[in-house]
């Protein structure tokens, strides 16, 4: 793969759609590889803060991302028993230059549900998550790598339900 020097909106959309596909089909080990070694996966309680300043919904460096994926793929736990299905819809993609390379902004709506006896509370209910996302991408010899994925939930400061899957 050649060292990318530009990122068009079409390139950015291809990147985001590829990421969403990995998440929605649970190819999570491959999702990990999209990140740079110093990458951060961040879902803030307060998007006005700097990353790490205070506790976040998710503040995952490389090891914590690995832990989260290991948890989802190899460990049985109540909040993901049964596991979540997700579907990402991506829109309003914009690309800006950034000190690290490029900043890709998008609006994403993620639909989530857990399968099982759908007569039961919390099962078979579709939960929509309305988000604004920012991917800071760094060009490398292996292609674009995510330096920071920030997910700003529309309801970050309101009550939240189960978010033990990847957004």
């Amino acid at each position, binding site marked *: 793969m050649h060292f990318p020097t530009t990122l068009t909106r079409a390139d950015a959309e291809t990147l985001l759609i590829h990421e969403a596909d990995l998440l929605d089909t649970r190819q999570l080990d491959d999702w990990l590889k999209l990140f740079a070694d110093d990458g951060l996966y961040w879902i803030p309680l*307060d998007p006005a803060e700097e990353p790490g300043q205070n*506790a976040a*919904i998710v*503040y995952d460096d490389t090891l914590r991302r690995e832990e989260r994926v290991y*948890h989802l793929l190899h460990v049985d*736990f109540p909040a993901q028993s049964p596991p979540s299905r997700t579907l990402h819809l991506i829109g309003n993609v914009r690309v800006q230059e950034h000190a690290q390379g490029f900043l890709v902004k998008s609006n994403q709506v993620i639909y989530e549900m857990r399968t099982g006896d759908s007569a039961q*509370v919390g099962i078979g209910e579709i939960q929509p998550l309305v988000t604004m996302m920012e991917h800071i991408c760094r060009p490398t010899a292996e292609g674009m790598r995510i330096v920071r994925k920030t997910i700003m939930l529309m309801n970050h*400061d309101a009550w939240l339900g189960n978010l033990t899957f990847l957004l």
Partner: protein
Amino acid sequence: MSAMFAREHEGGEAGLDPSSLIWQDERHFRVHTRAYTDQAVFDAEMARVFSKVWVYVGHESEIPNPGDFKTAYIGTQPVIVSRAADGTVHVLVNRCVHRGAVIARETRGTVRDFTCPYHGWVFGLDGKLLAVSERNDSGGYAPDFDAPEGLHRVPKVDAYRGLIFANLDPDAVDLDTYLGRAKKTIDRKFGRSPAGRIALRGKPFVMRYQGNWKFQIENIVDAYHFLHTHKGFVALQAKYGESTGDYGAHKGGSAKAMRQIRFKGASWALRHGHAQLENSGTADPEALLNGPHRAYYEALRDIHGEEEFAFVVGRMSGTIFPNLGLIHQQIRTWRPIAPDLTEVTIYLYDLVDAPHEFNEGWMRSQERFYGPAGHGMADDVDIFARNQQGLAGSAVDWLVLERGLQTDEKLASGDIKGLPASEAPQRALWLAWKQLMARR
């Protein structure tokens, strides 16, 4: 038995016999399904529990200056916690006394007064009615208008070490008496700060679950569930715990080590429904005094003395009935919305004057476990919803809460001391609940 309950509950709250919902004798301590599911029980709880006891409404640091306010709830009743010009804290029912509109919609803010958006009535920071708009205009109020005094002021407000409590019952016992031995939970937790104070940090985690509010009280002091509900987390601890920032919060990289900690110390069912898990002996004071934060621990030992130091640095968690939990470095509060809907809020805090790295470590550690995407808390709230769903199986009358009942030791104070992983802390709330619910 179910048929009998059905008849009793036909009359709504008035027809309720709460004593029939708890089966208590030498061998049994069981709670009836309806105590968690019945709307009439829930309505009675709002009237007989939340309107009669001290309810946690906030921390003083949330409203540091005159004009600062925050919103909170006493059961299902919305309130404003406000700091007046003279520095006193008032708890006001968040409802205009004219025609009922909610006065404050923000969770926090700073104001000069409270003005109702509907007709413009103005109230002071202490709730006093300051102005009625167009009072004397045509079609206005009579000269002898019997104007309400102001926003309804909750009659009793008091604080303990910065924790603000309010009580709708003017005849209630004072806060100090109400807290009793539960003050030890607060003293020891906040006593980990060399300054004896905490500082809330960042925005809180707010979660809702489709289950009864009492599941949360039972759970936060439940040493028994950890290795089962959180067996997935235990697996993560074994593989990643030291590297992803546990910082000693859950202690031990193995299930065996985590079990040993949870089966040490004592559990308490305190008067007025509070509970404690008091695990002295879970920390090694000598190791701490020779470890990386030596100066910090020496300061704590000098403040508290050798004996109390072992408790201050040991594991300790507790509930203060009906809506406050203290565990790790967090204040947790919950509010009932319906028999099967509850909101939980977790405020993380720093220990003032503790080493920076220590506070950072605890913050990252709790972030890993708590919140809607955390590796532990999400399992708890999932179980609460699962419990509520299970109770739809109403052919089963009782939930069993008698683990360790035979080893409970009732002290002269009225407090009950149990063995560490017994269900004494879960029984605490039900003992108070039964007394409160019996009153009209």
